């Protein structure tokens, strides 16, 4: 049903129209690659505390590769 509804876009001629990629038109915004550049390093410890399973400071998950 939703797919039928959005299919009405097919009737709009868009051959000459450029797509909108960004809400504010900013592009390629960079910052310096520096330690702590994004704030509080204490975060890591608090974040880890919320992991469902952990082991020696790592998040523990089921095996990714099968033997």
């Amino acid at each position, binding site marked *: 049903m939703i797919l039928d509804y959005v299919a009405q876009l*097919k009737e*709009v001629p*868009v051959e000459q129209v450029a*797509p*909108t990629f960004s809400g504010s038109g900013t592009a390629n*915004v960079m910052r310096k690659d520096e330690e702590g550049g994004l704030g509080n390093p204490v975060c890591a410890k608090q974040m880890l505390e919320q992991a469902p399973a952990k082991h020696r400071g790592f998040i523990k998950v*089921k095996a990714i590769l099968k033997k």
Partner: protein
Amino acid sequence: MMNIKDLTIKDVREGIEKKEFTVEELRRRFLKLIEEENDNLNAYLLVTKPEDSGWLATSNQQPATSNQPLLGVPLGIKDNLCVEGMVTTAGSKILKNYQAVYDATVITKLKEAGAVFLGKTNLDEFAMGSSTENSAWGVTKNPHDLTRVPGGSSGGSAAAVAAGLCVAALGSDTGGSIRQPAAFCGIVGLKPTYGRVSRFGLLALASSLDQIGPMTKNVYDAALLLNVLSGWDKMDSTTVHQTEVDFTAKLEDSLKGLRVAMPREYFGEGLDGEVNQAVEQAISRLEKLGAHVDQVNLPHTKYALPVYYILMSAECSSNLARYDGMRYGFSKTGEDLLDTYLQSRSEGFGDEPRRRIILGTYALSSGYYEAYYSRAQKVRTLITRDFEEVFKKFDVIVGPTTPTTAFKIGEKKDPLSMYLSDIYTVPVNLAGLPAISIPCGQAQGLPVGLQIIGPKWAEEKILQVGYNLEQG
């Protein structure tokens, strides 16, 4: 002292300056009020504790004169915004008990401004919805009629402000989630220009559309809050450097000569007769205040909702991939890794996020990308151009915020009819424009909202128009 339910930000400032109450007294009185009345409304999901003054950004011993613009102002915060140490669920089971580990930039700014956080307000799960019925923690009720929805997704914030359970609140708006509930609850809601307010610490729905904004009892308070919330942020690369302005400065300026556009597409099929009447009365008041009103066309309006549902679903399917049950939040261990992902996500997400993740993933998939996602991005450009054309000749666009007043809880059964309640608000997000909804009378005894849309960065203008109308 006046009834605390009616207090505005300005009143709080004056009350503290005149020593009618202290920051701490006011906070405790609001917490007591919430304790008594929240059960009826379910506006708050989490309420801070009276004994825990840790949520006070400033000391109780406030100075006699303070230049903190929001000193002691008790606020409700939509539960998709991170407040360090506070549980932040976004209305989803998948984040049950998740404790935010840092402050959103807007929260840092509010703390610096001296605001007080009363608690976290209810929302549709991950802000996906227009009624707050999609919350995993139960529906919020409209204070004007408890059998009706408050709108959404910022329904908890809107209900809390309308019921006087806070002085003002923060919401977020992806397709109307501040303005639509503001209209349904009879309050003021402002969605800023995309890039005006940092989204850092907002749990993302659709990153190219989301904006955080104020929900308040009057236009002055919205301007005051926007002063605090605005500004470039190194943590959000889509924020834009703008000259700092005081949004309260020009509120009282006359509207003489203001050029107002009324889009024909916003007054057509689907618009309730009484809502139409209330909105047209407000527009004739604008004319009496000296504005020139003309009808215009926004020809691509009917494509806004389909564009929105493709782009928003595509972006959210990507944004919500992070909730995988591995690092935080709800997790259900399965037989192997894939099974753990599947079980955690299937049980953690409600119906609406699952629906949108599936639609978004489909729209982005190889073979369908051109037909759906890419085409929608191009039509988005056409919708933006419609607005640009109108703003070459006009200062603001006005119309109804919503086609109807608040609907009954449980009334909208299929998702599509729910989506249609955002028909006048969605185009504004697609074009990244600022818009405000202000109360303008009633229909069927329920509040009606007038939407005032401006060109990019014209918040000052739409606030001025809203203020003049409000003063009457």
